[in-house]
């Protein structure tokens, strides 16, 4: 086993540690710092430093080292914390993150940033504590890391409660770090006497990739114990330096471990890291399994029709079906991760943005545990960041303005997530100025957009998603360039979701993002038109009914509306829109399915409802192209392909068809608009 195998693990762990550090720094109350939190921040820095040193990432190690010293002073109460110090720590954390990324890409980290942050941190140390840190910033190659491994003398490494398999690995690792003099013991306590070439901290750092820190106890053994200045048996000056270092470090190690053990007794790892590719492969395979299972199911039901039916076969099939569904659900849940992953970055975003704008903001997050498909979580982050920035910049007013308006100085921004039917609803809500309908309309006219005063509020608010649209009086660092809101909307639509805006002037704005839970599986309603089968997303289906002749009204020739409980809905005959042959033409003999798409309702005329089923969504564009009125395809139980219909696309399609059929000279009836708005 080579040490390079641990690189990836280190990168991932370091990333998590940095995230932890940031979170604690943000939560830190500078006036009355919680010693628990200070310790946690210190521990994170310490672990990163240890790992970085082991792997020879000298720049990262040095940055962390200086930061660690400062944090150590802070937790000992020698350094009084202030908000600007916390900002500097956060900056240092960002730079460490960049360094980490650089190492991950096998590049050298940015030297300028490194020197700058080292200087800043040392300046703080000098001014606040009055002591110079031992590592000068000018020297890019830090001495401890680049110095040849020095012998630290004899260390006794005790492994507590380590299984045989892990122990073998660990002993192998230890052999690489020094010369094993002696080993023995049982599973409870296995001791290795090591003539170590590295410090105790480094040994601990390496071991921690395999076992928990509580399971290791390193003590200095033999004559090189706490005798501080050059023991007699140390041959070279380099070794002396190393020994001094070891002596200085070793006694603190067990003490620290006790603390960690006391604080996090249940820190045992209960998760594994798996690459997303592997999970996706499993999901695909399970999808195929579901299809095969439905094929079998169909065959068996045909068999029983011919009264060859066999009881145990039937039972087996229904068991298979249940197991397959459970398996599918379990596999899909692997991909689901809580919204916390998205929300956790916002305290920082809000803090930074609010600081830049000179506003006071309280951030409230709700529904952190709401789960969402991983691919969606990744894609929602950017649009959400944009919306939050927008709210902070345009929504919430300056503290003075707020006071003058009789609102609390501190603006409130709420991020909330919750399930709603088959969807997830994410809200970005502020208690700021709200949107100004008149200003939006004026701006839209200025930009040459086609608007009218009769537009509903919702439609007016949607104008902000038009490309290049910004009502900000001036362009700021944060937002106002008008680039982005259109991208936000496009991204969200790309995920199969939509954005709604509710706003009240003077009271605030609520931006609601509605997303499907997952993109891979869809609850569908299969329908039949002619001899073709189509799938309607179940989330769009409201109800179905048999239209009576008296409820159908023809308008201006081709257009037909259906009256459903005092509401007139535009009728889309699927057989017309999609040119299906042998379909039922008489509307009163067909079935009307009332569906909703992008906030509007339509009545679809179909021949027959087959039933509800979960379908695996297959992309049509992989090998073909986008088809109007169709969002994707799926594979049915008999192995044939069925198209999944897209309601709004279908509506657009039927309109263009009718227009083309009507020949250009017939003006478009004005009713259309009214009906859509109803």
């Amino acid at each position, binding site marked *: 086993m080579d040490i390079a195998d641990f690189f990836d693990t280190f990168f991932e762990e370091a990333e998590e540690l940095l995230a932890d550090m940031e979170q604690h720094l943000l939560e830190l109350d500078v006036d009355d710092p919680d010693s628990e939190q200070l310790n946690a921040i210190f521990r994170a820095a310490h672990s990163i430093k240890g790992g970085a040193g082991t792997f020879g990432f000298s720049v990262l190690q040095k940055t962390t080292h200086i930061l660690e010293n400062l944090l150590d002073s802070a937790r000992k109460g020698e350094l009084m914390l202030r908000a600007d110090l916390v900002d500097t720590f956060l900056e240092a954390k960002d730079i460490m993150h960049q360094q980490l990324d650089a190492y991950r890409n096998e590049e050298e980290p940015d030297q300028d940033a490194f020197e700058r942050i080292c200087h800043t941190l040392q300046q703080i140390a000098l001014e606040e504590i009055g002591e110079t840190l031992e590592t000068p910033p000018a020297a890019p190659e830090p001495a401890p890391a680049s110095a040849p491994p020095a012998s630290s003398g004899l260390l006794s490494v005790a492994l507590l409660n380590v299984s045989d398999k892990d122990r073998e690995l660990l002993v192998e690792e230890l052999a690489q770090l020094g010369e094993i003099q002696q080993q023995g013991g049982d599973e409870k306590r296995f001791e290795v006497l090591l003539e170590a070439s590295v410090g105790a901290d480094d040994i601990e750092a390496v071991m921690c990739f395999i076992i928990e820190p509580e399971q290791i106890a390193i003590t200095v053994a033999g004559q090189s114990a706490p005798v501080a200045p050059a023991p007699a048996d140390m041959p070279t000056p380099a070794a002396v330096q190393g020994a001094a270092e070891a002596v200085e470090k070793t006694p603190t190690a067990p003490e620290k471990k006790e603390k960690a053990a006391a604080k996090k007794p249940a820190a045992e790892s209960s998760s594994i890291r798996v690459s997303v590719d592997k999970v996706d492969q499993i999901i695909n395979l399970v999808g195929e399994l579901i299809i095969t299972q439905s094929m079998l199911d169909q065959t068996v039901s045909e068999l029983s029709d011919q009264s060859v039916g066999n009881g145990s076969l039937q039972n087996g099939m229904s068991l298979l079906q249940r197991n397959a569904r459970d398996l599918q659900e379990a596999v899909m849940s692997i991909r689901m991760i809580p919204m916390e992953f998205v929300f956790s970055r916002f305290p920082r975003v809000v803090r930074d943005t609010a600081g830049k704008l000179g506003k006071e903001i309280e951030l409230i997050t709700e529904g952190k545990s709401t789960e969402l498909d991983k691919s969606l979580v990744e894609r929602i982050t950017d649009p959400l960041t944009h919306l939050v920035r927008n709210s902070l910049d345009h929504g919430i007013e300056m503290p003075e303005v707020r006071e003058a308006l009789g609102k609390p100085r501190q603006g409130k921004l709420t991020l909330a997530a919750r399930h709603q039917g088959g969807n997830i609803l994410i809200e970005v809500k502020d208690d700021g100025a709200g949107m100004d309908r008149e200003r939006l309309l004026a701006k839209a006219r200025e930009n040459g957009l086609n608007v009218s005063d009769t537009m509903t509020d919702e439609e007016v608010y949607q104008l902000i998603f038009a490309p290049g649209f910004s009502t900000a009086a001036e362009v700021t660092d944060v937002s106002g360039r008008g680039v982005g809101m259109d991208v936000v909307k496009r991204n969200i639509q790309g995920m199969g979701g939509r954005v709604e805006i509710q706003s009240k002037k003077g009271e605030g704005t609520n931006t609601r993002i509605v997303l499907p839970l997952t993109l891979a599986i869809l609850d569908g309603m299969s329908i039949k038109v002619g001899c073709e089968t189509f799938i309607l997303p179940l989330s769009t289906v409201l109800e179905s009914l048999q239209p009576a002749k008296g409820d159908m009204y023809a308008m201006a020739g081709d257009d037909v509306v259906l009256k459903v409980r005092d509401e007139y809905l535009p009728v889309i005959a699927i057989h017309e829109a999609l040119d299906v042959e042998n379909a039922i033409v008489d509307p009163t003999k067909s079935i009307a399915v009332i569906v909703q798409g992008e906030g509007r309702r339509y009545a679809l005329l179909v021949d027959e409802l087959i039933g509800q089923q979960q379908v695996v969504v297959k992309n049509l564009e*992989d090998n*073909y192209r986008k088809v109007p009125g169709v969002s994707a395809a799926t594979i049915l139980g008999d192995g044939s392909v069925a198209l999944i219909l897209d309601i709004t696309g279908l509506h657009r399609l039927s309109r263009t068809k009718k227009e083309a059929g009507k020949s250009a000279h017939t003006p478009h009836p004005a009713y259309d608009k009214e009906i859509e708005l109803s």
Partner: protein
Amino acid sequence: MSQANSEAVRTAAEAENSEFLVFSLGAEEYAIDILKVQEIRGYENVTRIANAPAFIKGVTNLRGVIVPIVDLRIKFHLDNVEYGGQTVVIVVNVANRVVGIVVDGVSDVMTLTPEQIKPAPEFGVTLSSDFLSGLGSLDDRMLVLVDIDKLLTSEEMALVDNTQQQ
């Protein structure tokens, strides 16, 4: 595979003998580069796609992958378009896409030497010579060598979404 790349592959192959899959459309014999062929299967279970050109028969399920099916007989304006037991779909792999093409039958695999491949004449209304990589002459037979990459990714085949590539 990028255009330049496939070009390079082709020129390299042309320097030596190249293998072609020969298929028939009506009475005519066509051939495509065998390296583009993924598999050959029967014509079945095709789901129609509305508002698509007539030569796009629809899509089918190829072991969980949705594959469009193109009928070259309709595209080349042949008279007798029938679907029977002999009707064959050649599944080809072009430009990272999988497409099935319907032909009347697959006869054999031929090896052609560079001398046997003649340049295609500059004519052709239904089938532009842009889509041909040459004419193969084999005793008294003539094989029309189709550049299947160019043909299937061309705009008039409407298989590739141009807006999507922007």
